[in-house]
């Protein structure tokens, strides 16, 4: 318990036009675990993500990653810290190929300057080859190899989701933020996703923070869950504790949810 958590949010608040979107939230994600963040739509979950990704700047509180102050970072400096993310509505580079998306995922890891790129100097070519090798590796793993040169926007939704996953992973991050990864997936795809998220923890040792509505997925993957409502944290605990918590049932899961869970 003495080692600090990988991601620590402390008493964070942010409001938009006078409305508090996140209100004094604290949470911790321990190294090597999967944490879930759940709550009704509009509870502030995505806002939390956007604060960690540095799109928003909280008016109060702190965010620390691996002991370092994350609030000092600009959005493009978050990935170099070791934090990757996926988006609720997928922010892929749609006109580009799967391979190019994975190459952009390694943008910060290809130390090629402007002039050596412009004149295609040997150093640049070697770096490029290495990046391509890493991209192929990730494409193999996610079953994307056959789509390497396909334009992303031409791929089915589920495959695009995999591309976004691959793009987040290709840079070997330490923490990955997943924003509603199961949205729009059918039950069998969701099952595959469940395995995949567990794999991130068990095989790659990546820490995961997950926002998700699919309670099945959350229960099957998360080590601990934070529940938000109206920008506040209303509960925190293991999946079992959460599904029995009366406040959570009232605000989020609903009464019938409880009955069915008991059944």
């Amino acid at each position, binding site marked *: 318990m003495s080692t600090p958590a990988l991601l620590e949010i402390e008493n964070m608040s942010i409001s938009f036009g006078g409305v508090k979107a996140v209100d004094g939230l604290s949470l911790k994600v321990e190294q090597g675990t999967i944490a879930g963040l759940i709550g009704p739509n*509009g509870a502030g979950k995505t806002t939390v993500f956007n604060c960690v990704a540095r799109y928003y700047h909280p008016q109060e509180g702190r965010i620390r990653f691996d002991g370092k102050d994350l609030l000092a970072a600009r959005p493009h400096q978050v990935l170099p810290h070791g934090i990757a993310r996926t988006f609720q509505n997928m922010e892929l580079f749609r006109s580009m190929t799967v391979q190019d998306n994975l190459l952009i995922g390694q943008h910060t890891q290809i130390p090629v300057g402007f002039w050596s790129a412009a004149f295609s100097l040997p150093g640049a070519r070697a770096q490029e080859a290495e990046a391509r090798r890493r991209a192929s590796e990730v494409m193999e793993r996610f079953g994307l190899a056959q789509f390497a040169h396909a334009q992303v926007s*031409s791929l089915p939704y589920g495959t695009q989701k995999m591309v976004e996953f691959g793009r987040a992973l290709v840079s070997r991050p330490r923490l990955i933020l997943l924003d509603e990864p199961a*949205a*729009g997936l*059918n*039950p069998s795809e969701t099952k595959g996703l469940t395995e995949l998220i567990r794999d991130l923890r068990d095989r790659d040792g990546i820490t995961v923070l997950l926002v998700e509505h699919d309670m099945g997925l959350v229960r099957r993957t998360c080590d601990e869950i934070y529940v938000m409502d*109206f920008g506040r944290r209303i509960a925190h605990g293991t999946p079992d504790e959460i599904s029995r918590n009366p406040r959570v049932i009232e*605000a989020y*899961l*609903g009464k019938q949810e409880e009955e069915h869970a008991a059944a």
Partner: protein
Amino acid sequence: MLQLEDVHASYGNVHALRGISLRVEKDSVVSLLGANGAGKSTVLKALSGLLRPKSGSIVFGGERIDRSKPEHIVRRGIVMVPEGRQVFPELTVRENLMLGAYSRGDRAQIKQDYEGVLETFPILKVKAKNFAGTLSGGQQQMLAIGRGLMARPKLLLLDEPSLGLAPIIVQEIFSVIRDISKRGTTILLVEQNANMALDVSDYAYVLETGQISGQGNSQQMRENDEVRRAYLGG
């Protein structure tokens, strides 16, 4: 009252509906359940004329409407309350409601219906002169439903009325839905919250990847293991 027969529709090259057939009887409440992206909202878009089906037929009150424009469909009595409220943020609450009656010409009746809507949603009376954009999410949802009612719908299409709303507001919205139904408006409801939806509906269809994968009355649906596991969180 409404009958869809083998309706196919797509966005660009995404084949969103793959042969949907369903019926809505007069004075009933029917809900469409299913996961995100299953095609529920697409069914409503096809019904309201926002998306033209590629094939199949939609018959409403004995007339084909699958080739009609939205404005003609509204005049026939199918009115949609879209997902995410979609009120006009820079118009006042009153202007929003009056636009609901845009396709009607009966002035006196409109006035009366306006009073009726304000009675159903007292908060709208207080806020009548405010811009719709200043209302809270729940109030906007009420405005959106009120705006729909101003058209005097025969069939009201509700797309995710509980989306992003606090549970207490959701309760309120659903009790209004029940009232509207009792007053003789037929309702087709698309809803993520399957429990709530089944509470108010007589009949339900389950959509999966653009096809109907199950149907039945509310009781049957609740007892169906598959539905329970997938949509009721059982």
